[in-house]
């Protein structure tokens, strides 16, 4: 634990520099957690403003233009800047440990991925301070987005482009990590389900994000360089944007949801004290969902006028996803069946998730029915549906994961009582907010409505919904209090506080920077559990104590991302004044220069000598 002590003694400047240059997946996980948490709060405040505007009919809390910015930024922030990085936080914190690796395959790119995401996220939000953020909806349908005045949508395009590049890099990194860096004995069919879902989600990122990249490029060319992809006057076609966006956008749902399923699989198994029921079926279902996720994008476009054949095909394909999802639900239930169910905060989230997500999945089948979707589409029914999936599935999982892996990441356990308070406030608030919205939609309330008229029977439902939203807000505040309280108390726990099953719990909390002194020998599914049932305390090493190779820290990822951030302003403002092209060239120059440095300067890393490891063990 000498490294921990050393870190604690560091001054603020040194710590800051450490985090700016780190390539350690555990520190990058913390960066993702903090940044994602920050954007989650921003997005949450936007949500509360939206709900406050809708608390009564014809309200004038915010103007129409500002409301449109709020809904756009709420959606964009929550998906790209909160949910994605928080998923990445857990993937970084846990996946290398679960497969028994000392780091990820590309530590440098891992860091680059984070900084690209962060600078992209900041770029997205710059619009607020320059006369208005993006206001064309998070889906940014052309031609509304291509004709939107000001620079809001430009910031959306550039911000998402930069952060999307980061995500793509992260996806490739995890694919290679999982394929190449598993410990001896960790076969594919012994990988914990969270690792499996991270693997499939990374594959989805790889094949989905480029479609968004292209869409954003086309939109950038239209808005900033006079191209006509989506301009009917030049022969363009705005439906292309919708296809590109949803070819990315639908897999994105599974990019978020699959790791969420993985988190719950870990938690349910751990706190039922049982191995996951139907592990093989769960893996199969995960892969199948990932595969089908690419076949269904046009179910977002039933009302576009694609014709009955396309509508029917996409309807049936979409319904098919319910099957593997159902398999998952039942396997979770049968993991609980016969278990010794310990209900603490992470488990409470998991138990809250099952009925909530079942509802979300059910409404998913309902909206998949094309001819019925003509009624649901773009109404609050759909708003309710995807919040049941994204909040009830993903956010619940992130909050569960926060409580579950907090000890592994920080060495302390979050307060269970406060955790339960957070759960109940958030859970009740969630259902109050969104259940009624199914009915609001069917009663004739379209989504993205700044106001609704008086006397249309929508008042009570909206009031209830707003009350629920504020309960969720209070729940989040309690979580923050919990985090502060736990950090101040700083009561360290052992490496395995939950009596858990997977490899990450076989090493101290938080783990040393090289993770495993000796790579573990994996002898089955739930490797730590296997050893525990045979009376051992930890893993059997698979190798003698040798020198450990470690990557060097680097400041280049930060500078490289900063370069693109600067170039972004050049891209945008050259539309008014070509002298801004200088800024563009400076920014791109910084980034390409960093790439050149990275390419020509050898970075061989360093070694921790086994003598030092031994010495540390003796201390």
């Amino acid at each position, binding site marked *: 634990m000498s490294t921990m002590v050393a870190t604690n003694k560091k001054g603020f400047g040194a710590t800051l520099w450490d985090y700016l240059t780190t390539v350690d997946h555990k520190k990058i996980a913390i960066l993702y957690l903090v940044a994602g948490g920050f954007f989650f709060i921003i997005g949450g405040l936007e949500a509360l403003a939206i709900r406050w505007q809708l608390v009564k009919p014809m309200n004038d809390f915010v*103007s*129409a233009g500002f409301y*449109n910015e709020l809904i756009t930024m709420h959606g964009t922030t929550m998906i790209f800047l909160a949910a994605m990085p928080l998923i990445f936080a857990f993937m970084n914190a846990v996946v290398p440990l679960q497969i028994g690796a000392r780091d990820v395959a590309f530590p440098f790119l891992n860091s680059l991925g984070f900084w690209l995401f962060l600078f992209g996220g900041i770029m997205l939000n710059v619009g607020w301070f320059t006369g208005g953020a993006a206001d064309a909806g998070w889906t940014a*349908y052309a*031609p*509304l987005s291509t004709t939107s005045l000001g620079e809001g949508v430009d910031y959306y395009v550039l911000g998402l482009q930069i952060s999307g590049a980061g995500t793509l890099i992260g996806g490739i990194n995890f694919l290679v990590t999982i394929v190449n860096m598993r410990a001896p004995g960790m076969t594919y069919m012994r990988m914990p389900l969270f690792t499996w879902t991270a693997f499939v989600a990374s594959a989805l990122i790889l094949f989905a994000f480029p479609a968004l990249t292209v869409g954003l490029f086309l939109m950038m060319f239209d808005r900033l360089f006079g191209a006509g992809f989506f301009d*009917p006057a030049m022969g363009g*076609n*705005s*439906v292309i944007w919708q296809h590109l966006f949803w070819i990315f956008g639908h897999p994105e749902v599974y990019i978020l949801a699959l790791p969420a399923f993985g988190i719950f699989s870990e938690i349910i198994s751990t706190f039922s004290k*049982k191995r996951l*029921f*139907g*592990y*093989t079926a769960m893996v199969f279902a995960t892969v199948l969902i990932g595969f089908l996720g690419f076949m269904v994008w046009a179910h977002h476009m039933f*009302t*576009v*006028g694609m*014709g*009955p054949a396309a509508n*029917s095909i996409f*309807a*049936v394909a979409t*319904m*098919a996803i319910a*099957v593997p999802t*159902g*398999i998952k639900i*039942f*396997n979770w239930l*049968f993991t*609980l*069946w016969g278990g*010794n*169910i310990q*209900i603490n905060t992470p488990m409470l989230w998991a*138990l809250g998730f099952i009925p909530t997500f079942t*509802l979300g999945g*059910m409404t998913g*089948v*309902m909206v998949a*029915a094309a*001819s*019925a979707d003509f*009624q649901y*589409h773009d*109404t609050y029914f759909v708003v309710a549906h995807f919040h049941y999936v994204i909040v009830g599935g993903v956010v619940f999982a992130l909050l569960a994961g926060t409580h579950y892996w907090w000890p592994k990441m920080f060495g302390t356990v979050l307060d269970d009582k406060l955790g339960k308070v957070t759960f109940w406030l958030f859970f009740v608030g969630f259902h109050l907010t969104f259940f009624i919205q199914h*009915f609001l939609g*069917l*009663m*004739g309330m*379209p989504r*993205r*409505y*700044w106001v609704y*008229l*008086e*006397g*249309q*029977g929508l008042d009570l439902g909206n009031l209830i919904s707003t009350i629920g939203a504020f309960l969720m807000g209070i729940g989040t505040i309690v979580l923050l209090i919990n985090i502060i309280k736990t950090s101040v108390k700083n009561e360290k726990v052992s490496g395995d506080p939950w009596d858990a099953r997977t490899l990450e719990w076989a090493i101290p909390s938080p783990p040393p920077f090289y993770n495993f002194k000796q790579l573990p020998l994996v002898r089955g599914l739930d490797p730590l559990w296997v050893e525990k049932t045979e009376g051992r305390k930890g893993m059997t090493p698979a190798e003698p104590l040798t020198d450990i190779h470690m990557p060097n820290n680097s400041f280049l990822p930060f500078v490289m991302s900063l370069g693109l951030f600067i170039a972004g302003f050049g891209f945008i403002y050259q539309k008014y004044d070509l002298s801004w092209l200088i800024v563009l060239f400076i920014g791109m120059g910084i980034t390409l220069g960093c790439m050149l440095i990275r390419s020509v300067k050898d970075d061989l890393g360093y070694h921790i000598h086994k003598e030092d490891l031994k010495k540390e063990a003796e201390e």
Partner: protein
Amino acid sequence: MSVELEFIQVFLNNIKLKRKRGLNMKDWMGKIRTLSLFSFLVIILSACGKDNLTALVPKGYGAEQSFNVIIISILVMIVVFVVVMAIYVYVILKYRQRKGQEDQIPKQTEGNKTLEVVWTVIPILLLIIIAVPTIASTYDLADESEKEDSINVNVTGLQFWWNFEYPNEEIQTSQELYIPVNERIYLNMMSSDVIHSFWVPSITGKMDVSPENENTMYIEAYEEGVYWGKCTEFCGDSHSLMDFKIVAVSQEEYDQWVDAMQSTDPEYTAESATAQEGQELFENSCISCHAIDASSNHPVVGPNLADFANRTKVAGINDFSKEEIVRWIVDPAEVKPGNGMLDAPYLEENTIGQAEAEKIADFLLELKATDEPVDSVQQFRENEANDN
């Protein structure tokens, strides 16, 4: 609760009557319908919304088709939910850790192949139950076989209003789509700016109105009345205020209305003195965008005002009164942020104040095709006045 009663009534009619068009009348429907009552109770308990707005009380063919699929899928889903919840509640009650059991290690079961097959096959069967009527009605709603022989309307969506042109009748109107009941009307829809979407929940599901591809759908209303239409594709600042109506009238009233629209006079001269002053102002400031006769030759720039005095609402959203008309003219930004009238020169030049606007309103209130609004519109105006 009249809405709920009506809801049940519509449903019972659904069971008893044979619809003219057959696809929803397959035999399996009858069997499912008895079951449906259950789900109806659930929905009724949570209220159905406003009578001529809600999708839960269908009053037109498309809405009814969608509604049937909605009900079938809800029923199937309730079955699934009940099963899941039953297992869920059971396991939590039964296997919850009790005091003193902390160290018990349960049996580590790997899985069960039979169970896996069961919960793979049964959902597939349930999905087929939903998929079959879905596909049938999806095709049915895209049917264009009767287009040639039906009334056609060219719908144009604009920020933030709707234009309805009847090409065969050579008339156009705005904001209110007049149709005869129990007739198929084909809508050919295009936008002249961004994407909009045409939705009248009680009558029909929605269809996008795009700037580059013409979309066609048909509608059919079962009862006379005024039905709320909403724009459902995010289209800018006043997206939430882009309301329109379908006015479903008897065949006779419809024919009269078409005749009257065809004979609206482009050279109309106002009668009352204030209206004449208003007309002068109108001709200076408004006529370049707004036509006062219903000829379909006018380009679609601003809403056609030929039948203005018979409208259900001012600007599609506000109660029909002179006061609201004046407010709309004087301060259009307040009523509908970002609407096209904000570019009108009179606002910049500040030539129309309260007094002038009242005169213009007097003139506009003389613009009508028929002397009185049709019955449904009168009824609608009364209801709206009572509701608010």
